[in-house]
């Protein structure tokens, strides 16, 4: 069975804060998808510290748990977490977008600890199905977690995959939705409404819970006792805030992808620590 360590909430909070510092650090000199990274940060930190059976010395261990980022844009949160937990040197984050390394806007396997590449939406649920299936075939007890964006739920392959995961009774598969209510520059409910979302997952054969994706106690409750039902895949809808931790970009449709200047970065770091409010002047990237 998986050993679940229980870190004090303070430790998790501090780790998440450091991960957010890394995310801010990657939002300059080319920038990154900061909004989605910040909405996912607490979730990814929680998974690595409390849920996943993984460690830097077990990167290739077939008995490890798997975490796949299907939405991909949130990878700075994963880079930051991997750096903090010793999967890579913190210094390496400075290589963001450098041709000398492979730390770019979407996940890829050249970074130890990252299981698969993504970028095209709607892919990794199916890849997760294959991994989960092989684990079942070998009678393994490890699990496969896949983080989906809520915008990504527009993709038909997510629903196709859920049908297949249910048919194959993959109760070692856990789909987590980063429900930050935005897709690129628009609110999900204004474009392709997803609500009511829980019943959709249930209708496709998963057992579902909704949690607060920024509250460690709520996450603890959500990830306790998975699978929720034997023989069924698990879906966890993590309600999150895009840009969480930086009030000046929280829930801002235009602060999806950003490339801040050095002054803004300094201000945002202060804002993260609650010491000053940032004034942002950089251009925004709008695709809608």
């Amino acid at each position, binding site marked *: 069975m998986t050993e679940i360590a229980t870190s004090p909430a303070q430790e998790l909070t501090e780790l998440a804060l450091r991960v957010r510092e890394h995310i801010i650090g990657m939002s300059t000199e080319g920038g990154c998808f900061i909004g989605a990274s910040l909405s996912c940060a607490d979730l990814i930190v929680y998974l690595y510290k409390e849920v996943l059976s993984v460690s830097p010395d077990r990167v290739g261990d077939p008995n490890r748990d798997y975490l796949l980022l299907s939405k991909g844009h949130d990878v700075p949160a994963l880079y930051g977490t991997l750096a903090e937990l010793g999967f890579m040197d913190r210094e390496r984050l400075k290589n963001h977008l450098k041709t000398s390394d492979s730390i770019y806007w979407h996940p890829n396997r050249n970074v130890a600890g990252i299981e698969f590449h993504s970028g095209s939406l709607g*892919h990794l649920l*199916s890849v997760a199905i294959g991994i989960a299936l*092989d684990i079942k075939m070998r009678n393994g007890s490890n699990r496969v977690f896949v983080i989906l964006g809520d915008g990504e739920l527009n993709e038909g392959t997510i629903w196709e995959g859920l049908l297949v995961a249910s048919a194959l009774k993959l109760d070692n598969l856990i789909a987590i939705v980063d429900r930050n209510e935005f897709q690129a520059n628009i609110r999900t409910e204004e474009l392709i409404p997803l609500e009511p979302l829980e019943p959709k997952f249930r209708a496709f054969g998963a057992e579902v819970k909704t949690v607060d994706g920024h509250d460690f106690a709520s996450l603890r409750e959500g990830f306790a006792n998975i699978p929720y039902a034997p023989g069924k895949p698990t879906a966890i809808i993590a309600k999150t805030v895009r840009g969480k931790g930086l009030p000046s970009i929280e829930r801002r449709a235009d602060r999806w992808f950003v490339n801040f200047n050095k002054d803004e970065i300094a201000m945002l770091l202060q804002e993260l620590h609650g010491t000053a409010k940032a004034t942002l002047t950089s251009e925004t990237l709008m695709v809608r």
Partner: protein
Amino acid sequence: MNYEEKLWELAQTDERIVVMTAENRAAIRNLPSKLGSRFIDVGIAEQTMIGAAAGLALRGRIPLTHALATFLTLRAFEFVRTDVGIPNLPVKLVGGVPGFLSDGNGPTHQAIEDVSLMRGIPNMQVVCPADHDELVSALPKIIESNAPCYIRYNAFPASVVHREPFELGKAEILSDGEDVTLLTYGFLVREVWKAKEILEAAKRSVRVVNLRSLKPIDEKAILKAARETSLLVTVEDHFLIGGLFSIMSEIFVRNGVSRRVLPIALEERWFKPALLADVLVHEGFTGEQLAQKVLRALG
């Protein structure tokens, strides 16, 4: 030994082999009971099948995925390219009823850009067996290779007496000749062989090259034919763009070779849906019609 028997034989000694299908069991009907959990039918979900195959391959499996060629290479294309191609995983794509073999299904089912699509993916191999014997003899080599591979599935009875064992990237020279070389792949080897006999009766010396695998391709055999025969004819149930004719053009340009080539393919059109024998007549691909085209070109 047929395709599924061979597959079963290989699977018995190689635990890595898993057989997948998107609800298309025509070629693997007897395998579910034999393979147990190593047989996976995902239903009509080609994209999910390919993504899952990538996941299985990440865990050390060699998935052989089965679906109609058109849905495997078109519906699931981005999954093939992104989840199998980018990480270069040993997923094998077995495309059913490719080219003319889709008979009367119509253009939705006509995989006649499959070679073009699959060969454009880095490291993807493309194997086009002439008949059932060639398919069965190719299977161990395809599985042995660690690369992703697209197989234009063809289980027609032996079309010719094969002269050489199957090797990836090695063409089979079915006959030697000096006037003209007929180059083809897949089930059309049968018609090309008939054409060769007609041409020989008309006192022409004909070389027949069965390409077998289009990627890797036997560049040497093609360049040798270009040196030794004055006319080359490509025969394929594929769009003119992207198939054997395109491949040969690339080889010739890269090698500074200029040769007269008569391409016989589907030029900017889909073919008339009908039973295979009637399709061949309608589209001008019977041995007799091919021979006439070659004779006209030879003058």
